[in-house]
């Protein structure tokens, strides 16, 4: 190991404000991102519980809720506009502030520098800035609930011209929609800064011996995710600015001529609603992988660690991560098959979409290969990793239906895609976050999470999410349409109602169980069992340093790497694992 301290390390801050609030330490920033996502996920969860209430019992009055949300109830059942506002905000908050923020901003920030043997991110101040912009962005988003007209009702996809025309098209489409766009624009900016930082750090700041092919798969997924973010968020940012200009500046990027809304002639001409969809989905599809790739990294790390076996097909995993990232940029059109897109280009998008299933299948194959012949330790983290694989299979495989042009004609905008993407980019990604939390919490806080309560939380959540989302596929097959405030106004939707009730009850139980996680988290932070440097007997660099790590991570001693990231069960080794920094094995002995 090199003994020279790193002159670039910034001094340890001494004031509370510099240490905990405006910190430039990637670890503090990581924790800040994690807690921002935690607040967001409970807001998002609360919104979904309210939505499920209306879907299951659309005509019921809720006097208590009416007192809390007077705007959402009109002296009786929940209003449809409030339902649509809940839906829009649920989707937006979950996708941006949870699924993009927790795995990348939270765990990525905290562990990427440590796992490659760096003392911090390449641009610490930029890192701080990207967190605080994200923070403001969340504030602006939530503020949309409290302005005149309430939150927007145009969905997280904000399809123009519904999102472009203003209040004439519906409540929440005035000030609320403006705030939504401003918040998203800020978020894009923050993600862009974060992505630059991640990419530079991986390329420039790896410790001696940490070659690309010795990087943990988590680092590979954070790196690839950052590239996706770098290339996709600017497109959404541009789209957002154009949409805001259409609304406030009198331009017509997305508004065609000749529109008449409730007998009011719209004075715009020349724009195209399809253009918004292209810009949105050019971002939106890579975004799906931004949400799920880090989860794949965490699952790989945990499966190998707790099966006490090297990851099966490391090189294939790296190639698959990159293939998913690359192909992810060429499939956005599958969201637009029935939009009026050229039917010919739909054919191309469809074939590429099904091709992207191939690297996903390789990953599943390799995860099973990692378990095969292993010695599985059932820690809570491992339960989540195995749960991740199960959900990844269930959620990913239904993409084979939706990616086909002809089947999409029937299933588009039904509950089938809702079930599909919740299963994969929603709960599978969340299982990655839960797994990461149980695995890394001891490193972050020096204490263990309670394993018994962790497992209890796992069982309810795993069974719960399956009970919610598998029947939801059937609701889609039966014709159930998404974004309907209730499914009682059509004859063909009548058979859906028992399913709506079942799914709502399953959702309430699952949502309630999340309180267990919250309590466990905070209780363990202060009262949990104290832990050592390497409680899981893991091999990667974060487990070579104290828990929690010192300010500059390696206390001036930048490590030298000799081994791959997943050397478990090595024959002839004194322990059943070889850490990345262990001295090289002398082959002549």
């Amino acid at each position, binding site marked *: 190991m090199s003994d020279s301290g790193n002159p670039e390390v910034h001094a340890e801050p001494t004031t509370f404000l510099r240490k905990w609030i405006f910190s430039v330490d990637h670890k503090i920033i990581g924790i800040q991102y994690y807690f921002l996502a935690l607040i967001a996920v409970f807001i998002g969860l609360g919104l979904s519980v309210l939505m499920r209430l209306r879907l299951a019992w659309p005509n019921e009055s809720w006097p208590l809720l009416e007192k809390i949300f007077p705007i959402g109830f009109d002296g009786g059942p929940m209003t449809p506009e409030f339902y649509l506002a809940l839906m829009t905000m649920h989707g937006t908050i979950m996708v941006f502030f949870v699924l993009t923020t927790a795995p990348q901003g939270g765990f990525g920030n905290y562990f990427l520098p440590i796992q490659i043997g760096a003392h911090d991110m390449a641009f610490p101040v930029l890192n701080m800035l990207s967190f605080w912009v994200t923070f403001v962005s969340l504030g602006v988003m939530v503020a949309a609930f409290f302005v005149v007209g309430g939150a927007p*009702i145009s969905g997280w996809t904000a*399809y123009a011209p*519904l999102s472009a*025309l203003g209040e004439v*098209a519906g409540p929440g489409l005035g000030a609320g929609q403006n705030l939504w766009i401003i918040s998203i624009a800020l978020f894009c900016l923050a993600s862009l800064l974060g992505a630059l930082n991640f990419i530079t750090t991986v390329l420039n700041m790896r410790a001696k011996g940490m070659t690309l092919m010795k990087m943990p798969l988590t680092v590979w997924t954070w790196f690839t995710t950052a590239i996706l973010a770098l290339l996709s968020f600017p497109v959404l940012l541009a789209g957002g600015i154009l949409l805001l200009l259409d609304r406030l500046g009198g331009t017509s990027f997305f508004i065609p*001529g*000749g*529109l008449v*809304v409730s007998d009011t*002639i719209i004075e715009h001409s020349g724009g195209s*609603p399809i253009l918004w969809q292209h810009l949105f989905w050019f971002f939106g599809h890579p975004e799906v992988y931004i949400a799920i790739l880090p989860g794949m990294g965490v699952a790989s790390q945990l499966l190998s660690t707790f*099966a*006490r076996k090297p*990851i*099966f097909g*490391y090189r*294939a995993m790296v190639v698959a991560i990159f293939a998913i990232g690359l192909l992810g940029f060429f499939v956005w059109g599958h969201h637009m098959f*029935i939009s*009026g897109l050229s*039917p010919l280009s*739909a054919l191309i998008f*469809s074939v590429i979409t*099904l*091709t992207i*299933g*191939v690297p996903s299948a*390789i990953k599943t194959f*390799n995860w*099973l*290969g990692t*378990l*095969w012949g*292993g*010695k599985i330790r*059932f820690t809570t983290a491992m339960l989540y990793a*195995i749960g991740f694989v*199960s959900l990844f299979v*269930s959620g990913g*495989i239904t993409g*084979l239906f939706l990616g*086909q042009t*002809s*089947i999409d*004609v*029937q299933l588009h*905008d039904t509950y089938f895609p809702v079930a599909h993407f919740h299963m994969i980019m929603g709960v599978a990604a969340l299982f990655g976050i839960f797994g990461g939390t149980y695995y890394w919490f001891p490193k972050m806080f020096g204490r263990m999470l309670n394993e018994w309560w962790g497992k209890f939380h796992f069982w309810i959540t795993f*069974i719960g999410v399956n009970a919610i989302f598998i*029947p939801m596929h*059937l609701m889609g097959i*039966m*014709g159930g349409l998404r*974004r*309907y*405030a*209730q499914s009682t*106004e059509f004859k*063909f939707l009548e058979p859906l109602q028992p*399913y709506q009730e079942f799914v709502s009850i399953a959702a309430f139980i699952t949502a309630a169980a999340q309180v267990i996680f919250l309590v466990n988290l905070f209780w363990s932070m202060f009262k949990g069992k104290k832990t050592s440097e390497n409680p899981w007997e893991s091999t990667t660099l974060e487990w070579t340093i104290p828990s929690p790590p010192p300010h500059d991570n390696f206390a001036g001693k930048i490590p030298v790497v000799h081994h791959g990231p997943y050397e478990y*069960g090595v024959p002839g080794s004194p322990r*059943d694992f070889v850490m990345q920094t262990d001295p090289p094995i002398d082959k002549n002995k």
Partner: protein
Amino acid sequence: MAISFAVTIWLIVLATIYLFSGQMGWFPPQVSEHGGAIDDQFFYTLIVVGVAFTLAQVVLGYYVWRYRSSAHKEVTYTHGNTKLEVIATVVTAVVFVTLAIMGQKVWAQLHLQGIPEGAVKVEVTAQQFAWNIRYPGADGRFGRTIPQLINDQLNPVGVDPKDPASEDDIVTLNRMAIPVNRDVQITLRSKDVTHSFFVPALRFKQDTTPGMAISSHFKALKIGEYEIACAELCGIQHYKMRGFLMVKSSEDFEGWLKEMSEY
């Protein structure tokens, strides 16, 4: 722990297979010429997906149980098996791409083949939250429309009375009649925001995108009344934007048109 986890995964598989067996509900009845092929393609895909899903989950459960640390002490130290991975990749790629290509047939039939000769012409103009249906009348031509003339009560699609072709145009609200066993050419427009014209029984769904006139065609094979639903979020009453498709015998259809033109 291991055995209960394995059993849970297997039970989820069983429950899923039961749900997808059609016992608990399935697609709405199918009455269009092209719809059967969509249902068939769904079925073929279901077989492939079902086999892959079951295989992956059953093996996952089995490994979880078989390789638990209490029962399996000797780790098989391996970094992978290139041959196996290449085989798995090629097989998956072939199956997936085959599915993608098979799935294109109906699509091409709907969107790439020209509109059949002699098709009945119907135009749909969607608005918040209703379907305006227009027929060209005896001359077979739709009259010009002008947005400035639009009036929800009197002239919902803004037909220009000065255009001779518009004289015999017939406009109805939320009710669309078509003759059975005849090709229908449908042109989809929107007055305000994006809607989506969805007839579950026809296996037909197409967005009505503002600024565009999207043409497609279908043929209904069974007389009856079916619901038209909006499938693209269009505002607060999206969930009750309901219309009716009435598939009639040729004579009934002509009679209906006549009645509507007099109305």
